[in-house]
Structures are given as structure tokens and as C-alpha cells.
């Protein structure tokens, strides 16, 4: 009380001292955080137009120029029709990233949505247990998940090949055979997608369960009274009312799929024959293995643009103009 009195006594410029302190304590960290964020984004933007390597001293201003020359749009032109290793690997990585994201999203939804509806329909205590079990992989380290799935996929000692052997089948080199394909996509990519889905689907599952709980029971009851069967209720009532949640889940899943890195780096490191090489792995290798920071920054910029475009398209397709 006394503190408040002292604060009030020092009112200046229309604000109490306590209010000024609060504004300063919030504003300065915000400025610092956004400053750091904007600086790094701006720095990446600048680097994309230079052939910059941290190993070279370069010019007098932030090492730009000199032995780290300005190259304009050369990086972007190379990405389109360059013959160098980095250009071909970029195009391969882009293709693989699109395959990965476009496969993960529908598979994730195909697993999580029905499963959420099933879990929502069971007893409350069981519901909690299922939710916890399915969410566990989400909070597990990606490196740990990748190593565990690497053991499962091991061509000689892995569980999957043991099962195949049991039924007299031919073992598969899941992560290392460049000739093995399924539906036109390498088996290694499907294997990585499987591991990624296992780790990731619990997140969307919990969101769908929460969304399902938020749908008013009256809507479903009304439909049932009108003669709809449970499947029709799910298709005609539940799914449409989940559209805002679907939008969120689709956007977030796409974003994380485009940024996949750790699980692939540990399981395959882009192999076999670059068939699991994705954009973020390509950025990492160029920036930190080969010190081509300029090229890596240009690829990052392309990734940002792609992610933004995909997000805008999704928001246009799935947006709703109503609430319940």
C-alpha cells in the first residue's frame, strides 16, 4: 500500500512510476528480442546476395565484399538451372521436401482424426490414459526417436526384417537401398516418414480431442433426432465444425514438415543417393559443413517464401467466417 502511495506521489507525464517501470520492463526485452530476430533475418537476407564464407576475411563492412563478393541474384539463378553440385542438390532437396510434406499431412490427418474421434468416445479415465500414451513420443527427443527407429529398420538385426523373415519374405534395406521404391517414392523416404509420423501424430491428436470436446452436443443430438446415423453425424456435423482446428493443424503440420531436419540427419543423413535429402539438411550442410553461408541463406529465403505461400493457400482454402 505504501509502495503504491509512493508511486502515485511521483506521477509524471500522465503515468505513475510503477506504470513507467512496467512499460520499460516489457518494452526493452521486446525491442531486444525483436531486434535480434530482425537482425538475423536481415543478415540472412543480405547474405543471400553475397558469396559469403566465414573463413574469408572479406571487405571492411561486416566482412561483405572483397573475397566475399556481391553476386546479386546469381544464387537464385543457379537454383533454377545451375549444373553445380549444390544446385542439383537444392532441386533434389526441394522435391524431397515437397514429397515429405505432402505425404505427412494427409497421413497424419488420416491417423489422428479418426483416432481422436475414437478416443473421445471412450470412458473418461481411459481417454486420459490414451491421450498420455499417444502424446509421449511428442515429448521424446527426436534424436532418440531416430536412433530407435534406426534399430527397428536395421537390415540385419531390425524388428521389421525379423518379422519379414518369419513369414519367409526377403529382408529389405529400409534406409540404404537406393533402388527400393514404393509408389514412385524411395523406401528410405517412406521409412523416415513412418518414424516422423509416429513421433508427431500425438500433437495433432490432442488438439483434435480438445476440438471435439468443444463441439456442442446439441448439434449432434439434433442431427440424430432428424434421422442421421453416427457416420453421417461425423461427416456432416463434426468435420465441418472442425474446420478452424483443421486449418490450424494443417498449417502447423505443413510448417513442421517443411522444417524437418533432426530425425532425417540421424537416420539417413540424406541418403541413399540423396533420396531423403531435405531443404533444411541442405541448408545445414552448406552453411556449416561447406561454409557456403551465402548459398545457404539464399536457400533459406526460398524455403521461407515456399512456406509462406503454402500457408496462405491453406488459409484461403480452409478459412471459415462463422463461430459456434
Amino acid at each position, binding site marked *: 500500500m505504501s509502495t503504491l502511495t509512493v508511486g502515485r506521489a511521483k506521477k509524471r507525464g500522465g503515468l505513475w512510476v510503477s506504470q513507467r517501470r512496467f512499460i520499460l520492463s516489457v518494452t526493452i526485452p521486446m525491442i531486444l528480442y525483436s531486434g535480434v530476430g530482425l537482425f538475423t533475418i536481415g543478415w540472412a537476407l543480405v547474405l543471400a546476395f553475397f558469396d559469403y564464407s566465414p573463413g574469408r576475411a572479406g571487405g571492411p563492412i561486416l566482412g561483405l565484399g572483397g573475397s566475399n563478393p556481391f553476386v546479386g541474384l546469381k544464387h537464385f539463378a543457379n537454383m533454377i538451372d545451375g*549444373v553445380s553440385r549444390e544446385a*542439383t*542438390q537444392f532441386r533434389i532437396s526441394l522435391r524431397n521436401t515437397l514429397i515429405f510434406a505432402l505425404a505427412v499431412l494427409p497421413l497424419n490427418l488420416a491417423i489422428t482424426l479418426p483416432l481422436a474421434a475414437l478416443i473421445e468416445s471412450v470412458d473418461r479415465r481411459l481417454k486420459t490414459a490414451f491421450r498420455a500414451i499417444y502424446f509421449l513420443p511428442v515429448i521424446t527427443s527426436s534424436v532418440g526417436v531416430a536412433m530407435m527407429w534406426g534399430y527397428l529398420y536395421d537390415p540385419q538385426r531390425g524388428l521389421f526384417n525379423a518379422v519379414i523373415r518369419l513369414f519367409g519374405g*526377403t529382408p529389405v534395406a529400409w534406409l540404404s537401398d537406393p533402388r527400393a521404391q514404393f509408389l514412385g517414392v524411395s523406401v528410405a523416404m517412406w521409412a523416415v516418414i513412418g518414424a516422423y509420423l509416429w513421433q508427431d501424430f500425438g500433437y495433432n491428436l490432442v488438439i483434435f480431442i480438445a476440438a471435439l470436446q468443444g463441439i456442442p452436443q446439441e448439434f449432434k443430438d439434433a442431427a440424430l433426432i432428424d434421422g442421421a446415423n453416427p457416420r453421417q453425424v461425423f461427416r456432416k456435423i463434426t468435420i465441418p465444425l472442425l474446420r478452424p482446428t483443421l486449418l490450424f493443424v494443417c498449417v502447423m503440420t505443413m510448417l513442421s514438415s517443411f522444417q524437418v531436419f533432426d530425425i532425417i540427419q540421424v537416420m539417413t543423413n540424406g541418403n541413399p543417393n540423396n533420396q531423403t535429402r531435405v531443404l533444411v539438411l541442405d541448408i545445414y550442410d552448406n552453411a556449416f559443413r561447406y561454409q557456403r553461408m551465402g548459398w545457404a541463406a539464399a536457400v533459406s529465403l526460398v524455403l521461407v517464401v515456399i512456406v509462406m505461400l503454402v500457408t496462405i493457400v491453406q488459409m484461403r482454402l480452409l478459412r471459415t467466417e462463422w463461430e459456434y
Partner: protein
Amino acid sequence: MKGNLVQGLLVVLLVLGLAACRGTQEPASTAENPQPAETPATAKAAEPVSLRLWTHQNNAFNAGYEALIQAFKATHPGVDITLETFDYDTYIQTLQTAMPAGEEADILQMFGTWTAEYAERLAPMPDSVMTVEQAQQLYYAAPIGGYIINGRLYGLPQEFNCEYGGVLVNKTMYEKAGLTYPPAWKTMDDVLADGKALTQRDEAGVMTVAGFDFNASDPASFSFLAGVLQLGGDYWNADRTGFTFNTPQAKQMLQWMVDAVSKWGVLDPVLFNDTTNWVGSAFFEGRVAIGYIGTWAIAEGKNNYPDFADEWDYFFLPSMRGDPVFVADSGWGLTVSPNSKHQDVAWEFVKFAAADVDNALQFNLTSGTIPAIPEVAASPKIAETMPWVAKALQILPYGRYLGAMPDRDLVIYDILYPHILNALQGVETVDDALQAIDDEANATFE
């Protein structure tokens, strides 16, 4: 209030700006502006000197550095050297961020190939410490080669990074297969014959033991390059401004590697490669009979697989033809930062650690590495502790420096090995693989 906030903002931005511009400071001494140490270290003996030494994290190496630091401090009172280590990936990233900011340590452990890439940010060695000619007389050609950039010396090597020719051999498997041990290979066909006899498969036809595994990035790449030289070719053009990978000798060598897989069947390249059943681990797990890998894998294998019960030893392969000519990287060594305030003392430590025969011997014994100095390599202590080095003595003089590639890691790990692997796995023909290697490797000069 508003004015105060704006002022505060300006101060913050000024501080950020100054911090960002820290990297633009001119180093005390650079490749273009060499400034040899002003005062001999001994003259400054009374002045306390504190130095930092950065290395990558490797227990055996770090033990060697700790011993060197203690020995140096004993003879240089007033000098304190702090060893700071980073795991391999973190070390690379730390160098990449610290060097532009001028915040790196005084003494930097560098891999020979990195030295060329970072030369602009390293101090050239003053002639008073050692001249290029003196260094070339003291060291083997391959390890010192990477530290000489445009005729100037930028550091000293501490090891001979020999990835060519050495194989781990499982004696237990040899005896079970009824083969002569120790192996008496005269030609590479003898090696393939042993490898074929040692290969094992399960009832489903899956290879469980690779008879002769040469399919990891370093062994495959360096044996390919050595093979090209031994067959009379070269992968450099005459003036060393470009690569010549698409030659008859390169084709002969790559075809030999493909035949080892497809005709001799000593290896399944899908199951045994750089990412699956890597040879350095697979050998000590009993899944490889003859494993092609550098000597550095011995200490690692002993450390990681203490329960491996099979008997084994390390041997060197015969050449493809004639002398065992091969190429090698310059291995780990020491360099000095141009931003160090005590470059003279730092150089003195580098010379103490890497050029003094007794200290170099001690370091090689502790770290388990092949000496970069012929005199050290011939030492009886080395022969007693690391008998494989004694076996290597016959080939080490044939080692040449790999050459100053624009981007060595890119050429070896991202171009050469992937296409060799593609050829072994049947994804590319030999001709296509060589053409792709030639095109992509030459594009690194652009």
C-alpha cells in the same frame, strides 16, 4: 517519457551496432599484412602471459595436449595456457562465428585442409620460428603440404592423416576360414580372394559378414585416388587449375572397385557403406573380416568395443601397380590467431608441441596418431607401442599432399564418394559416375 524511451532505444541500437561491427576490426597480422612477432618470448618472461588453446573433443588428443601444456608451463614460468575443447561439429561452428568476430583463442587446432580455407583469418608463421624450407625438411610431404598456402607457412602438423592402404584384419575369422595368417598379399587380387573366402551370408542370402569392406567415404575416396596415381594417371590437370577424373586410369580403378563387389562379391554396398554398418564399427562388431580404415580407428575401436573378443591386427595393402604412391590430407596441427596479443609465445608453444622431436613423439604416443615427422615415426617407442606405424613406414614416404582443392570436403564427401557409391550400388554406370565426378568437381573452381 517518450524522449527517454527513444534515447534508450538509440543506446541499445548503438550497442548492437558496435557489437556487430566487432568483426570488421583489422587483425594484427594477416596473410596480406604479415607482422612477425615483435619481441622474442624470452624477453617477456617476466610478464605473465595467458593463452587459450582450442581443440576438437577427443580424449586421446586432449590428454596429449594437457601433457604438452604442462611441459611448456614447466619451462616457461609466467605462461598459462588454458585448453578449451568442443565436440567436432560445435568446434567448426564455433570457429565460423568466433573468427569473423575476432574472438577466437590464441592457438587453434586446425585440420590441414581447413588451414587453406581459413588462411585469411590466420597468422602466417614468422620466419624466425620456422621457414617453409625448414618445415619441408622436418616433416613428411603430405602432412606439411596443407599448412603451406601461397608459399607461406600457417601452422605445423602433429600427425600424418593416412587414410590409404591400412586394413583391420580379423585373425579369428581367418583361422576359421582356414586361410593363411598373417596374410601374405602380393597383389590386390590376393586381397579379394581372401575377402571372398571370408564373406558370409544368412539363409535369406543377406550378407552378414563383409569379407573386404572398403566402402566408407575416406577409404573408398582415397583408395580410388591412390589407384589412379598407381596406374599412372593423375586427377589434377597439368597446372593444377582443374580436375581430370574422367581418364582411362580412373575408369580402370573404379571398374576394379565395381568388380570387387559384382564379380568377387566381397561386399554388399547397400548393407555396408558410410551410413549403414560403417566399417570402423562393423569390424569391432564382428561383421567385417578385412576392414579398410585409417589407423585412427584403432584407438576408437578399442575404446568403444572393449569386449570384442576376436583376435585382430592391422596391415597394409599392396599397391595396384608399382610403388605404393598415395595422397593424404594434412592431419591435425596447430595454428595461431592474428588477433592474439601474444603471438610470439603462441608460436613458441606451437613449435614446442609440433616440431620438438621428443614432444611430438609423446603427443603421437598419447593420441595414437601416425607421426608427421619421419624421425619420430622411426622411433623404437612408436614401433613398440603402435606396431602398425612401423608397418606403415614403408609406404609413408610415398605419400603426397592431396592438393589445394577449392573445397576439399565437398569434393571428397559430396562428390567423389557419393558417385563411387552409386557405381558400386549399380545406380550409375562407371562412365556416368566418372563424368559426373569430373563435371561437379570442376564446378567447385567457379
